Each structure stands twice: as structure tokens, then as C-alpha cells.
């Protein structure tokens, strides 16, 4: 087990791979494509105290090797979101971490209070605005701490993460998530307008890993790496840089199977790499297609199929 947060009541997870806020929804959306029980946890989409409507206009701009998304953090407000998802959170195959957008100390405090009384919520992740200051970090964490005993993760913006990390630790965060996706501006090919939004892609990885490396030497609480992970090796690079765990983001949208593969790989559950099949799906001959055979010539099977298949 991995202690994901410090503090009195640490959150422990069985796998270091977590689905990041904003990528897997509030509920069971991905259970149809991903075995969520293989993940260490899932972070919900952001929740605010008051309901928020979707942004108008363009909300997606395709980028070279990535995507810009501008949703406007739509959600039905804390009460309705918690009510609508309570049943699933209780029976979820992996721990649920609820992401609260740090709109104001008052509102985030109220959200935390409501969550504190709910079963099925393993922790709270605080999401800060890109312009958050030391003071914002301290006040938001204090507001949440005052209203819940739940472990608290704080997700810091990429650019300012090294500047804010120590403040988050001092204020009582149980773990730091490095980092939220940065914001960018790109031209919408359909309307010709310049659109601002969060940007995602594999290229986020070196930027986030650098920030992780800087921050692990500053704080004692666990650091959770996030940004641009697209395969198991990417995730391992974050661990090598000092992260305790990782959050997988936009790859889930474009290659949902990859999120499970990453979790299985880091959890030691990937046994039959050659055929690309799951351990419990493997049977003799599975890897014998022509396409797979041609790959084999380049790199021979690293290990023999296990005689004892884990469930």
C-alpha cells in the first residue's frame, strides 16, 4: 500500500496510478472501458458550491500533439453533484477523491463540510486558480481543514508550483499534486477566434517532471506527479523524479486502454506484454498474429507467460 497523503489519517492506495481531475467525470463514465479497480484512485471533475454553466462558444481546439479544452468548469453545484453521485462513490471500485475548485474560502469550506459527512469520499483535492498567491493557498487550505477531517491534496498550477509548494505544506496539505494543466491560447480552426483554455498533451511531461523534481527537495509531504503521462514509462519517470504517485490525464480520452495499462504495469499486473493481452485474458497462442510476430523479431519476448495467473 502507498501512503498518498501525510497527516494523522493518511489516505492509502493500492496502486500509484490515479485518474486526474477533469478527465474521468464524476461517476462511472469510464467503467465501460477501464477496469477502475486497477487504479489507485480517481479524482472527480471539479465541483463548485454554486452551479456553473458550460462555457459558450468553442470549447475544444485540436493542437499539434494535444488539445486545448475550455469547459468553464460546468457542474450542478456541490449539493446536487454530491447527491447525484453518492451511490456510485460508495460502491466505487477505487477510492474517490473529490476535486473542489477554490472559488472562495467560504464556498470551498462549505463544500468540504458537506463532503465530510458523506461516505465514499476518500479525500479532497483542492484546485487553485492559475493566479493563486501564497495567501490564497493558505486561506483555501485553512478553510477546508476547518471543515473536514478528510485528507487534503492540493493541485498547484504548473508555472507557480515551485513557488507555492512550501506554503501548501505549511498550511497543512496532506499531499501536493504537481501540476494542473497550464493555460494556453490557440486559434479555433472553425471560427478563426483565439480561444483560451487548459492545454494537454504528452509534451506536458518534461515540464511537470521538472517541477516535481524541484518540489520534492522542498517539502516532506508526498508529491503526486501529473501532466502528459501517456505510457507506463512516462509514469515511471515521475516516480524516478521523486513523485509518490501519479495522475494520468488526457490519454484517458484518446486511448482509454492506456490508463489501465499504466496502472497494471506500475502495479506489477502486466504480464503478457507481447500479445498485449491482459494477464487474465492470456491463453497459449494469443500472441501469434502476423502483426505481432513481426514485432517479435525486433524485440524478443521479455518473459515467459506466467504459469499462475493473478486475478
Amino acid at each position: 500500500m502507498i501512503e498518498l497523503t501525510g497527516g494523522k489519517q493518511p489516505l492509502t492506495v493500492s496502486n500509484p496510478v490515479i485518474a486526474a481531475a477533469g478527465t474521468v467525470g464524476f461517476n462511472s463514465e469510464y467503467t465501460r472501458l477501464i477496469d477502475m479497480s486497477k487504479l489507485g484512485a480517481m479524482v472527480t471533475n471539479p465541483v463548485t458550491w454554486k452551479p456553473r454553466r458550460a462555457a459558450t462558444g468553442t470549447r475544444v481546439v485540436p493542437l499539434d500533439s494535444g488539445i486545448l479544452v475550455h469547459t468553464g468548469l460546468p457542474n450542478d453545484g456541490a449539493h446536487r453533484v454530491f447527491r447525484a453521485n453518492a451511490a456510485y462513490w460508495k460502491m466505487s471500485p477505487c477510492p474517490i477523491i473529490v476535486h473542489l475548485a477554490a472559488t472562495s474560502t467560504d464556498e470551498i469550506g462549505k463544500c468540504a463540510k458537506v463532503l465530510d459527512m458523506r461516505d465514499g469520499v476518500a479525500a479532497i483535492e483542492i484546485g487553485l486558480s492559475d493566479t493563486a498567491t501564497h495567501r490564497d493557498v493558505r486561506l483555501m487550505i485553512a478553510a477546508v481543514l476547518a471543515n473536514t477531517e478528510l485528507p487534503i491534496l492540493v493541485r498547484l498550477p504548473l508555472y507557480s508550483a515551485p513557488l507555492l509548494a512550501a506554503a501548501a505544506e505549511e498550511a497543512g496539505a496532506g499531499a501536493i499534486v504537481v501540476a494542473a494543466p497550464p493555460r494556453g491560447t490557440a486559434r479555433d480552426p472553425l471560427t478563426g477566434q483565439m480561444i483560451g483554455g487548459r492545454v494537454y498533451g504528452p509534451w506536458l511531461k518534461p515540464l511537470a517532471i521538472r517541477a516535481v523534481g524541484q518540489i520534492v527537495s522542498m517539502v516532506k509531504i508526498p508529491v503526486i506527479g501529473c501532466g502528459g503521462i501517456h505510457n507506463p514509462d512516462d509514469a515511471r519517470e515521475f516516480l524516478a523524479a521523486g513523485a509518490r504517485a501519479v495522475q494520468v490525464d488526457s490519454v484517458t480520452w484518446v486511448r482509454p486502454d492506456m490508463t489501465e495499462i499504466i496502472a497494471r504495469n506500475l502495479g506489477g499486473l502486466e504480464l503478457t506484454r507481447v500479445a498485449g493481452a491482459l494477464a487474465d485474458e492470456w491463453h497459449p497462442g494469443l500472441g501469434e498474429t502476423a502483426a505481432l510476430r513481426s514485432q517479435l523479431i525486433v524485440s524478443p519476448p521479455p518473459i515467459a507467460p506466467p504459469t499462475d495467473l493473478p486475478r
Partner: protein
Amino acid sequence: MRLEVWRCTLGSMKDAQAIIERVRRMSAALQRLDIAVDSAQRSVAPGQHFLARLTESWDPYLREPWIPIRQQGNSLTIERPTGRNYQPGEVVHLLGPVGKPIPLRDSTRTLLLIAYDSTPASLLMLAEQALAARTSVTMVLVGAAQGYAMEALPPELEVLRGDDKGEWPEQRANFGWADQIVAVAPPPHDVTRYGRLLEAVRKVRVEIPQGYLIGLFQPPMPCGIGACQACMIRCQNGQSLACIDGPAMDLLDVALG
């Protein structure tokens, strides 16, 4: 509202591999691909589509929407622009079916289909199924849609043409005649187009019943599964996800303002 159909198609969503079996050029702008698909993806209904990925590279990053226009045995026919070359034998990752079937009312005997400024591909399966069920179907190609290859349309289909403003001579007659209307307009002008359509229909029909006037919403879909919230449609009464609740939306429910 055919809820049981929706449930069951939602349940069958999969990310599976398919193989391109045949590539036919239909016109200078269009080609059709016959693809052999996983059994779970065969039972796709009009309105549903797939998110396709053809490369292991991350550029392009997003999956592209592949709209089936016909289903036959193991294989689906997909319509694509001619920009890219597809090879028979090529393997493609398909995620889907995405979305719900277009809710055709049981009482519909006369069906009006309108394609604004886009290929009518997402209406073709509906048209063929309706024609096979002896429904009278009229298709209006409006604006840029007028360039669509006529040969690619079923011969039994009545085809009319509308101008860039979205008007055509038989418009009022059509609105009076049709038991149901299904329109497709591409983003970013979908809401504007549908707003004008609703206005135009209101001039002919004092009362528009629930489910009578359907618009298809096809914004870019990063996830196709209801998770990323990028495909939200503002409705009179909250918001809906095009990938889960759509693409077909009752235009009376949508905030067209």
C-alpha cells in the same frame, strides 16, 4: 422514448479494433470505407458514430468522428473526405458507438431531413432505414451541402436544394407535410441554424409537439463517454452532453438564444 434501446447501446460501448476492407472513391471530395468491426460495434443505430484512431503517434491527438452510413453483416460503411489515403488492411481503433439513436417517432410516415453546410452522412442511415420501412423521405441540401454527390444518395430519396440563407421554395409545404423533421448543421453555426429553423417551422405549425423537430449536435468530442464535459449543450433546463444525450436533441429543449 425508446429508453431501453438507449440503455442497451450505452452498455455496448467498446474500444476495439476494426479493419478497413474496401475503399471506394465516390466523388472528388468523398470516399467510402467498408470496415470489418467487432461484434459489439455492429449494432449501431442512425445517429450514433465512432471515434477513430489510425495511428500510434500523438499527432494528430484527438480521435476523428467516423459516421456509419450503412451496416451490413460484419461490416460498416463509413464516409470520409478524400484528404487522406486509407489502405485496405489498415487497422483502426474504434471507440463507440457514441451517443444515442435518433428517436424516430413510431407515427412518422413522412420524414423531412435537412443538411446545412455539411455532408448529409449522419442522416443517410436514417434515410435508408426509413425508406425501407416505407416512410416517405425528403432530403434538403442547404448551402455548402448542395455540393454533395447526388450519386451517393439512395435513388428513392426526394432531394431538394436550399440556398445559403437556408431557404428553399418548397419550405412551407415541406414543414406542413412532414410528420417529423431531423436537421444536421455543423458547429460552430449549429445553434444559429437551428434557431432559425425553429422560427421558420413555428410560422407554419402553431403547435410543435415534443420530439417533432430534432437537431443533431456534433461538436468535437475529446472523450465521447461523458467525462470531459467539452461537448455540453446548453438547454432550457440545465445542460446536456452531446456524446451521451445527443447527438439528436429535441430543439424545443435546447437553449437556442
